């Protein structure tokens, strides 16, 4: 057998090389060389991102197990950039004495989940998909429990792994039903075999639950706030953006590629989920005092907006989905970055603690404000464009009522985002958070996020590039 075709998996191989290099470096390098561990790792990742950012022609290898389409390059690049931002933000945390020895683990585990997502995105078979899903989930649980002597973190880790395993087992059960009814697990063979028999519909529902869990849609969201709160903040931001971003893309491609015949079944399901996710999450977010829980609910509602793009099933929907994920990544990572730096230096994460933040930390407040405005969908920030495109994709298919419900929810979401802005800019405080000094990597991450928020919307090339490669039903 000729294995040379495997070499076409550029992204995966280059990531594996980086991972193994870092692992070896961490184990064998001396005290002096280890000082440069993080810069070296970040440079390698940046190189990896740059090398792999150009789309290639579509191909299928290993008998259809691994299918590549050019769009995947963009999705993977978005994930790469997000990971780099998260690692930049975690730089200081990992340089602390208590964490220095665990640094190698942190990088290795993060990159393993990333690798899992790569395989999940490019899978051409349900087994491959499942391997990817698990490779992404299990190291994730370890990361959530990274700060293992912290009771909350350990609890969050346990919660995450238990519910993740539960969800993926249901998903596997769904896959087995698909196999039972069609006799194959290859994505390329399935579309004609899935004809909409009751068994297949049931199989689809079971299968989709695993992904809904990952995307944390209501009612599969109950783990989200607790895990987000308990995990180290950088992990939380990774979880909220990278993990979610890959899952929504995979959901979209599977729905149109494999379950295209069930469109009349999955559209109402997604319709209901979108309405419930957006509304419930928004209502819950209003009452949150802990900013990490607050952003957890906000991210659930954001996932609901993404469903509007998925429900359209069109090429326009795919382009707006990928674009949404990109913009969401910049905005959410900026918000989490501010929260993480403040939590790390002062231990404060409550909304009340942020009172008067603008007086002491004008720059951080400014970044936070941009991020929240972008999440709320206010022009001229990128969030406005991404929301508009998502709504427009849904409206093009005639889902005006859904768009309307989503828009009403943007008002609720604006309300709670404004609560944070109010705390930072309007409220006065007796003892505001002292001036926090940001280190250089953190500053770089903020610069990247801010540039993203400001220019990804106004410069249309980004969207046009994505739209050129998108496909739909």
């Amino acid at each position, binding site marked *: 057998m000729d294995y040379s075709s495997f070499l076409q998996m550029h992204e995966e191989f280059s990531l594996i090389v980086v991972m193994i290099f870092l692992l070896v470096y961490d184990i064998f390098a001396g005290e002096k060389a280890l000082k440069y561990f993080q810069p070296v790792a970040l440079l390698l990742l940046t190189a990896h991102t740059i090398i792999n950012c150009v789309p290639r022609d579509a191909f299928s290898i290993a008998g259809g197990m691994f299918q590549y389409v050019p769009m995947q390059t963009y999705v993977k690049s978005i994930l790469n950039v997000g990971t780099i931002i998260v690692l930049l933000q975690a730089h200081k945390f990992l340089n602390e004495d208590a964490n220095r020895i665990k640094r190698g683990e942190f990088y290795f585990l993060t990159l393993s989940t990333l690798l899992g997502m790569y395989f999940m995105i490019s899978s051409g078979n349900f087994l491959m998909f499942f391997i990817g899903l698990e490779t992404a989930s299990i190291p994730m649980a370890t990361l959530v429990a990274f700060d293992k002597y912290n009771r909350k973190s350990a609890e969050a880790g346990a919660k995450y792994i238990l519910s993740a395993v539960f969800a993926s087992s249901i998903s596997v059960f769904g896959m087995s039903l698909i196999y039972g009814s069609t006799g194959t697990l290859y994505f390329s063979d399935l579309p004609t075999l899935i004809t909409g028999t009751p068994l297949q519909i049931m199989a689809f529902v079971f299968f989709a639950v695993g992904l809904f869990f990952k995307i944390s849609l209501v009612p599969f969201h109950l783990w989200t706030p607790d895990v987000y709160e308990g995990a180290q903040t950088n992990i939380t931001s990774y979880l909220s953006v990278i993990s979610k971003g890959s899952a929504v893309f995979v959901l979209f491609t599977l729905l149109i590629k494999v379950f295209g015949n069930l469109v009349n079944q999955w559209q109402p399901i997604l319709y209901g989920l979108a309405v419930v996710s957006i509304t419930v999450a928004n209502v819950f977010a209003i009452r949150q005092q802990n900013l990490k829980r607050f952003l957890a609910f906000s991210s659930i509602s954001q996932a609901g907006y993404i469903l509007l793009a998925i429900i359209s099933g069109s090429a326009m929907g795919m382009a707006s989905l990928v674009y949404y994920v990109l913009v969401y990544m910049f905005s959410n990572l900026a918000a989490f970055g501010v929260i993480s730096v403040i939590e790390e230096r002062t231990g404060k994460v409550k909304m009340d603690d942020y009172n008067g933040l603008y007086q002491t930390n004008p720059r951080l407040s400014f970044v936070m404000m941009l991020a929240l405005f972008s999440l709320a969908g206010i022009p001229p920030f990128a969030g*406005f464009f991404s929301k508009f495109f998502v709504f427009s994709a849904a*409206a093009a298919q*005639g889902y005006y009522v859904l768009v309307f419900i989503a828009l009403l929810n*943007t008002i609720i979401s604006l309300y709670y985002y404004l609560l944070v802005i*109010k705390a930072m*800019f309007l409220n006065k405080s007796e003892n505001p958070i002292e001036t926090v000094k940001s280190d250089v990597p953190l500053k770089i991450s903020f610069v990247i996020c801010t540039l993203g928020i400001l220019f990804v919307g106004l410069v249309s090339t980004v969207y046009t590039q994505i739209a050129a490669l998108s496909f739909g039903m």
Partner: protein
Amino acid sequence: MNFLSLFVLIPALMMMGLFVSNSRKQIQFVVATGASLLMILSGIITYMYFIERAAGNAATMLFTADTVWYAPFNIHYSVGIDGISVAMLLLTSVIVFTGVFASWKIDPLPKEFFLWYSLLSIGVYGFFISTDLFTMFMYYEIALIPMYLLIGVWGSGRKEYGAMKLTLMLMGGSALLLVGILGIYYGSGATSMNILEIAKLHIPIELQRYFFPLTFMGFGVLGALFPFHTWSPDGHASAPTAVSMLHAGVLMKLGGYGAFRVAIYLMPDAAKEMSWFFLILTGISVVYGAFAAIRQTDLKYINAYSSVSHCGLVLFAILMLNETAMTGAILQMLSHGLMTALFFALIGMIYGRTHTRLITEMGGLMKILPFLGVSYVIAGLASLGLPSLSGFVAEMTIFVGSFQHTDTFHRVLTIVAITSIVITAVYILRVVGKILFGAVQDAHHEHLTDATWYERLSVVTLIIAIFAIGSAPFWISGLIHDSVIPVIGQLAK
């Protein structure tokens, strides 16, 4: 790059200038220069517009430019102006200019204040020059958000409540509007979001029935359409002076302008069918706003309710769907914009001295503050429609136009709306009598000083503009009238 985009570019440059300036002197220099440039620019544009029209250019929009922005959605950055936009740009420039001088000594954080103020003006200018639905909507939203911080940080009274209410209600309006816009775009099957292109197509009447009310109400929220007007009193009362001026003076006009340019122009059939319903709502706005103003004791609340009444009249006249009334509506936008800005400026100046806005605590100010007092009387007279001031011209045109309808419904409504003039006279004269004449209420007020140079500059500019429209209305109404014709043409189709 079209020179119309300068209207957006200059405030953007102002923001950059503010970003690097450190002292109050520099900040004042940047904003004053920017605002003056905008004034000059709008003057030049008006002149060029007249020249072009005189040369026989009969296109609907002049100076158009079009750049593809988001090709997959057919979103273009397209600009262009007609007579109505020219009038609105002039209005905006006057108010931005005077607003800068009215908040010359703003405290605290002057830099941040003017940053947001410039962003607000980007939104307003951009809205008036756009001819593309998407960019129009985008600028509309850009204009909404700075309000929250402007009111929340620099406002007075129940500012947090007012700011939140205003922001959320206006966002609610924009939610309606966005559905309307998407409906127009996909419903018409257009291959462009350009208003002029969509106007050539026909949106099926069934769809118009859904999307006309959404669009009209969306803009109506900003135009203080009853029952969505409640943000206006609370928001305006707690906003700082310049923001009240810009908001009541220009931003509320976005509502009327949008209803005219988008809702009625693009969906004329539904407009004809449903105008009766909205006419009743706007009729209520007109009368209710005026009555509510009588009961208020806070100067800003009085003026805010009077704005509800006057802006209601704008929408009322637009819905009359005939040439004269629509011309009157645009004139009313201009006239109300100027006089309400004057009112808010004066109220801010009086409040800055007396530290109260309650009319029960003031009296005899005419003797102490003669300049502000006289200006206040002029503003009041303009508001109640004294001939030779702008209010008269606008209201006269509106009511003449409305009475051209021969059926009972329209005539009765017109008569009801006309009663608001009397009610307006009641609250204006009552306030003027109470605070300006009579005995001095508070001994501390004896030592107040009259307006400073920058306040005078701001007030005088506004008064000149009011007189200009009132005493020589022909040039401006001619400007507007020509541009109302295309909409009438749509309605007659």
